[in-house]
């Protein structure tokens, strides 16, 4: 049942993994958003194999970035744990459901997801979250953040919404090989009171577990193509470590607007792919 994998040189794949890992970590998206379209549209990789390779590179990116975020204290580990209950289940279900979808359906679903992500990104490009007053008790799922020399306190709100979003993010991750951060980070920061840096770091911390819940399913189906997945994951490791550090210095607003446009255009292009 496997479609043929075209011959692609390992150094090219490592470079693509590094570039998509860097941009993904810089924007807090995970590299899969750019990796899957590049592999399928530019290199002719069958979409199932591209999604599986992307899941592996998401695990590499998230695990490497999480070490940096943990050492800076930016991960809300308890909040992450609570939400992982939903994402890991979503990841497992998405991984199992992916087998039932045709190639055409996967392309369309991917295209719609990319376009929706682009719109969300453009709408939120200039946002900063509201941060509560220092006297407030952070509660079981809140905490503290120091940014620009000032310490803030935050509380987690609307946990049912956060759980439902995490479940959807897990399913998207399992179906399409994306991290799901693009769903969780805007909801956590806009509606659930979590500062964006914490939301992004906590989402990255969870993503490794989410992707792993479905990666074993892809592995057992033989969709994790050996040289392909290995090369992009290898590239994603240094790429994401550079990207996560660059996010301190880069003015994200204009970059996010450009990327939002790219996501919408790539989504349209993917929707036009004619495959059975």
């Amino acid at each position, binding site marked *: 049942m496997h479609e043929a994998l075209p011959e692609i040189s390992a150094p090219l794949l490592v470079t693509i993994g590094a570039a998509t890992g860097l941009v993904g970590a810089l924007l807090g998206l995970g590299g899969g958003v750019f990796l899957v379209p590049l592999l399928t549209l530019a290199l002719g990789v069958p979409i199932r194999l591209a999604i599986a390779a992307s899941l*592996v590179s998401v*695990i590499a990116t998230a*695990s490497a970035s999480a070490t940096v975020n*943990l050492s800076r204290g930016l*991960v809300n580990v308890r909040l992450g744990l609570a939400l992982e209950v939903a994402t890991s289940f979503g990841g497992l279900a998405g991984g199992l459901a992916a087998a039932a979808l045709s190639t055409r359906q996967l392309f369309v679903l991917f295209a719609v997801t990319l376009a929706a992500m682009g719109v969300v990104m453009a709408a939120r490009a200039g946002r900063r979250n509201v941060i509560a007053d220092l006297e407030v008790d952070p509660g079981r799922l809140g905490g*503290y953040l120091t940014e620009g020399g000032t310490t803030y306190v935050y509380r987690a709100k609307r946990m049912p919404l956060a759980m439902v979003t995490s479940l959807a993010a897990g399913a998207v991750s399992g179906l399409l090989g994306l991290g799901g951060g693009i769903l969780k980070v805007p909801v956590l920061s806009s509606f659930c009171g979590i500062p964006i840096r914490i939301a992004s770091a906590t989402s990255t911390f969870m993503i490794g577990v989410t992707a*792993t819940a479905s990666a074993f399913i892809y592995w057992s189906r033989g969709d994790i193509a050996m040289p392909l997945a290995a*090369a992009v994951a*290898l590239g994603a490791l240094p790429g994401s470590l550079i990207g996560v550090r660059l996010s301190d210095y880069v003015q994200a607003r204009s970059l996010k607007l450009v990327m939002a446009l790219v996501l919408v255009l790539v989504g349209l292009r993917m929707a036009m792919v004619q495959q059975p």
Partner: protein
Amino acid sequence: MKASGDNQGLEPGLARALEVALASGVALSGALLLAGLATDRAGLLRAGLLLLLFTPVARVIVLTVGLFHQKDWGFALVSLWILLVLLSSISIGSLLG
């Protein structure tokens, strides 16, 4: 802008243990993948990929043990639940495979 925090009150030793688990999984699997690609040996690539897949599992094990050790029972049980979901994914995978 640089930002920092306290990992929401997580004990620094446990945060450090999570970091070490993730960093060693990533470093070792990266080395295996690099060696596998350089020498064109499928066995090394397979080992590197499996190790990468097990890195988040190791992170969950470290967190579960750490939370039980701190007697943070509620979150320890949540962490154990997540470990069970991952283990069921592995066993469903091996049933399919």
